[in-house]
């Protein structure tokens, strides 16, 4: 049989199960930030508020400073400059200036000669507080505006979004079925294995270097400059390989400012390493959300309208809250949706660790509410829930009702794939009691055209350095946080230039060495950074081709790049090695290098906030989860999750599958175990890994990754995101599977055994009462 694939596909590392360059990671050779030990390095430690809301009356550091080995203590007054990742809502100080707003809020920092001493010295800093009334949950924040956590102190509101598309009330009124539900998502944390760490160092030339576990070196660079009042030309941010981030490291944190400031004061390098407890206080985890949602449908299953009222518990500071509030509604309109939509979302401040972006920012919670609503509709109308979704899919190459431009869209193939792999048709609704299947779908952005600060410059860029030895180095501003973006770039460059992977180096995450890229968030890496890289690689490729064509005296159009050599298309015996081609090109054009960049086209709806959620491409996901529920204990076990994900094109399938499995795992963990609870007294329920339970390897379901490729026209070689989208359907798929298994709805997360058992008992009691009434 003739192979019909294009030559580029035949030879490609792209799409092949190549080695993943992860050996240093899995053998302990990677050097993380905490592995860096500089001569004369000091240790820092942050003094934190033990009160949820308090005015700082006085800070007395004399006892701490009297300890030999304690070199400096700083307070809010040393850095009285507000910062915040969103330029419109700067409301944090590196150290609280006059008010502490949650238990764990940073109020002072010490530097000492070793870690233990720094911890002891922090205990010796005496802070006098005047305790203020606090709001430690959503309802109190709503009921007691006088707590005054919002701007101007008149209420606790952080952000409100109220958008309507079409006449929802009329659509719901004309529906044959309207499902109304109250859903609650308790917050969750990222729990990266590597906690936050930063080192500051000021050299005698006046260059301030900050090493940090950040996933946004560029934003950190800007904010360090602003807050410390040091020119950006005198600051370098280095991001060593990061041991997990998941969105929890995508804005500046107290420790980075404190490490830099204390280094400037003491003239010595200063390191901060957050304890696990501090990691929970730094937080920026998934927001608790209380969602009231109505979804209507016609008898044939056609969805009519969606009406959502959402309260979002933001914690003490804004963080990305402005975006979160939009995302809580804007990202729901794909892949299956109604013709009318209204959502009103209110984010409130509370005296709790600040919430922020966690994998699937802002959209995992409403997705849970919506996909469970669809399941309820399917039961009410007796339509297979997969069919119900098929009836309402938004097609490819269209625009959603809230103005999102949709291009490639592989949701149908995703549904087909999970339907087939899970044996849905034979098994759904037919499994023995206690065993069930559930389906859910979602869509997610591949980067956003909303740059955090408005500017017309590229969102992503790379530089290529081409060495006559045959080595090509990619300098990328992207942040390798374990998601594999370095490998993605290496594969792209290797394929374009005919190199093997060992000849490509990727240098990333260093503001001195690499061009600006906005960072590893909003699933933008593959799409934006990949495109930027292709642009640079193709420029180099054209030079190699031109030089080889001249040497072989053929038309450049007849030169083909193959693995290891550039050859003449119709006479492959004639050719030169890639290294030789590089040397020919260097002789012809001078020293070789190229830059590439990417910026989004103009996107989004023509209304305020219409650009938030607008992405150059959307990924699509469908899950089928299979659960078993023990009726005696209420314990739910997720046996299988089939994850089909349209990533456009899997540049590195091994990594894509890893992202799909990691996402599904993380969603399942939130569904069953993880719960970031702050008590009425403002205290975290248990800021440690015994009380905050992440699954052990024994608790992880069998995960089946099914890659779907829709070949996006604008993505690099067709690729889209795969890092966040595949998380969303986990939770509702599990919820829907629980219903299939035992007939109860748990509309509040997590689906703990206590909750499931209570629901089962209530169902039994209701049935008994019905039988009694019938007799």
């Amino acid at each position: 049989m003739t192979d019909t694939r294009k030559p580029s596909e035949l030879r490609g590392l792209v799409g092949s199960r190549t080695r993943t360059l992860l050996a240093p990671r899995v053998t302990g050779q990677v050097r993380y930030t905490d592995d860096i030990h500089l001569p004369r390095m000091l240790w820092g430690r942050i003094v934190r508020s033990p009160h949820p809301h308090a005015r700082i009356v006085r800070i007395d550091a004399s006892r701490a400073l009297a300890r030999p080995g304690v070199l400096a203590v700083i307070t809010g007054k040393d850095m009285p400059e507000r910062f915040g990742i969103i330029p419109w809502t700067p409301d944090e100080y590196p150290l609280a200036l006059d008010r502490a707003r949650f238990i764990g809020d940073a109020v002072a920092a010490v530097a000492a000669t070793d870690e233990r001493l720094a911890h002891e010295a922090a205990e010796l800093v005496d802070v006098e507080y005047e305790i203020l009334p606090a709001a430690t949950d959503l309802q109190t924040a709503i009921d007691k505006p006088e707590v005054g956590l919002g701007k101007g102190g008149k209420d606790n509101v952080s952000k409100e979004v109220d958008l309507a598309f079409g006449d929802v009330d009329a659509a719901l009124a004309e529906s044959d079925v309207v499902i109304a539900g109250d859903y609650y998502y308790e917050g969750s944390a990222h729990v990266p294995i590597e906690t936050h760490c930063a080192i500051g160092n000021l050299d005698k030339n006046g260059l301030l270097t900050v090493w940090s576990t950040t996933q946004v070196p560029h934003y950190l660079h800007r904010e360090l400059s602003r807050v410390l009042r040091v020119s950006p030309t005198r600051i370098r941010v280095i991001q060593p390989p990061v041991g997990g981030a998941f969105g929890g490291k995508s804005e500046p944190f107290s420790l980075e400012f404190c490490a830099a400031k204390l280094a400037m004061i003491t003239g010595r390098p200063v390191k901060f390493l957050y304890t696990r407890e501090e990691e929970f206080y730094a937080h920026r985890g998934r927001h608790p959300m209380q969602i009231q949602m109505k979804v209507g449908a016609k008898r044939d299953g056609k969805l009519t309208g969606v009406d959502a009222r959402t309260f979002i518990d933001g914690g003490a500071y804004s963080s990305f809250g402005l975006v979160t509030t939009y995302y809580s509604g804007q990202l729901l309109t794909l892949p299956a949706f109604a013709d009318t939509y209204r959502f009103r979302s209110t984010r409130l401040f509370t005296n709790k660790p600040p919430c922020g972006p966690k994998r699937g920012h802002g959209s995992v919670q409403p997705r849970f509410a919506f996909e469970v609503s669809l399941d309820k509709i399917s039961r009410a109308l007796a339509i297979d829930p997969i069919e119900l979704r098929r009836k309402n899919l938004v097609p490819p190459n269209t625009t959603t009702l809230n103005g999102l431009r949709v291009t490639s869209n592989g949701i149908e193939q995703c549904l087909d794939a999970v339907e087939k792999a899970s044996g849905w048709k034979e098994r759904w609704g037919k499994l023995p009691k206690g065993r069930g299947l559930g389906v859910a779908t979602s869509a997610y952005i591949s980067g956003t055209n909303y740059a955090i600060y408005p500017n017309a410059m590229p969102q992503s860029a790379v530089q290529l350095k081409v060495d006559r030895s045959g080595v090509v180095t990619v300098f990328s501003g992207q942040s390798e946080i374990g998601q594999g973006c370095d490998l993605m770039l290496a594969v792209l460059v290797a394929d374009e230039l005919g190199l093997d992977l060992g000849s490509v180096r990727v240098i990333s995450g260093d503001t001195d060495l690499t061009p600006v890229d906005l960072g590893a968030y909003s699933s933008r890496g593959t799409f934006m950074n990949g495109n930027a890289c292709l642009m640079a690689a193709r420029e180099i490729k054209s030079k190699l081709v031109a030089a080889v064509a001249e040497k072989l005296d053929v038309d450049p159009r007849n030169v083909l790049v193959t693995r290891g050599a550039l050859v003449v298309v119709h006479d492959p015996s004639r050719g030169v090695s890639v290294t030789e081609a590089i040397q020919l090109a260097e002789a012809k054009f001078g020293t070789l290098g190229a830059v590439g960049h990417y910026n989004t086209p103009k996107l989004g709806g023509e209304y305020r906030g219409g650009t938030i959620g607008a992405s150059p491409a959307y990924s699509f996901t469908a899950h089928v989860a299979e659960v078993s529920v023990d009726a005696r204990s209420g314990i739910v076990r997720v046996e299988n999750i089939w994850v089909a994900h349209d990533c456009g094109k899997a540049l590195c399938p091994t990594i894509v599958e890893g992202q799909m499995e990691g996402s599904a795992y993380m969603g399942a963990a939130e569904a069953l175990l993880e719960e970031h609870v702050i008590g009425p007294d403002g205290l975290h329920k248990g800021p440690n890994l015994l009380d905050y339970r992440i699954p052990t390897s024994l608790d992880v379901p069998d995960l089946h990754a099914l890659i779907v490729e829709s070949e996006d026209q604008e993505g690099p070689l067709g690729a889209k995101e795969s890092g966040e989208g595949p998380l969303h359907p986990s939770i509702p798929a599990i919820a829907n599977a629980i219903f299939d298994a035992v007939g109860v709805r748990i509309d509040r997360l997590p689906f703990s055994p206590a909750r499931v058992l209570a629901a089962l008992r209530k169902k039994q009691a209701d049935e008994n009462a019905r039988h009694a009434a019938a007799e």
Partner: protein
Amino acid sequence: MLPLPVFDHHKPKTLSAALDLLARLGDKAVVLAGGTDVLPNMKQGLVEPEHVVSIAGIEELRGISLVREGDEDKLVVGAGARLVEVESSILVRRVAPALAEAAGQVGGPHHRAMGTLGGNICLDTRCRYYNQTYFWRKSLGFCLKKDGTVCHVVRGGSRCVAAASNDTAPALIALDADLHLLGPRGARVVKAHDFYVADGVKNTVLEPGELVVRVSITRQGGRRSSFEKLRRRNAIDFPLLSIAVRLDVSGVETTRVDAADVVVSALGARPRRVRAAAKIRPGTPFDVAARELAEGAYAECKPLPNVDDDTEWRREMVPALVERAVTRLEG
């Protein structure tokens, strides 16, 4: 990370050297075996010793054997035996299955590779308001068990109700084990049941300078035992409940229960022996025994909000676990 405070470390090679050292250092010292309990507790400021005496190098504390004493066979397990050794020992699995099962469900593989039977027997009681950092406890206002005066579990309570969280304790009690202690005043043998007292601050009768050196369990024909643990994850978690059942059975074709013991732990400071077990009449069919023991346990065991998770759910799980533990022993 949370640093360990400064302390002097001692590692005696013999039991007598360890006892001398402990006698000399008095309450300035703590004993460290596997370290899986003491070290995290030291990091959280729950224990603040000037001296740490490691007994990990003492050969006399190790070993698992079957010893003939008079006309009885006794399983003897050294206090220094690692939990993984207890879990996988064929002798323990034969003579005292509940103990092997309990040891096998402590923590995760790493904890069991380091932790010892003696260490688990002497595990500090645990409470959601106690096993936290100094900063957290300070924010809370401390508690009865450490640095404070109030109980956050039982409002107005004057006695600490931190939970006995050692999985092996209920197994040892149900198996009627003898604990062999050695201290400045000599050797003594205490029944496992009498080793624990209902005080969460210190829930054992161990005297200052005294060590658990070994455990012995009499081998008895027709004796069966099992262990069940309630936890949210399948590894690492401390128990939300731990339950051991011992049955003495007879009969060839159909086995019947002649006597039973049921011990439930992770309730309060002392593992609770279910009184209803003593009322089982010889010759009781299995299903009847299972029901009576489960109902008895349910009536007598009332979990407190001293450890995580829903208290009502934990109570509902008591009979479920007892029933499962009994049912597993049939046939």
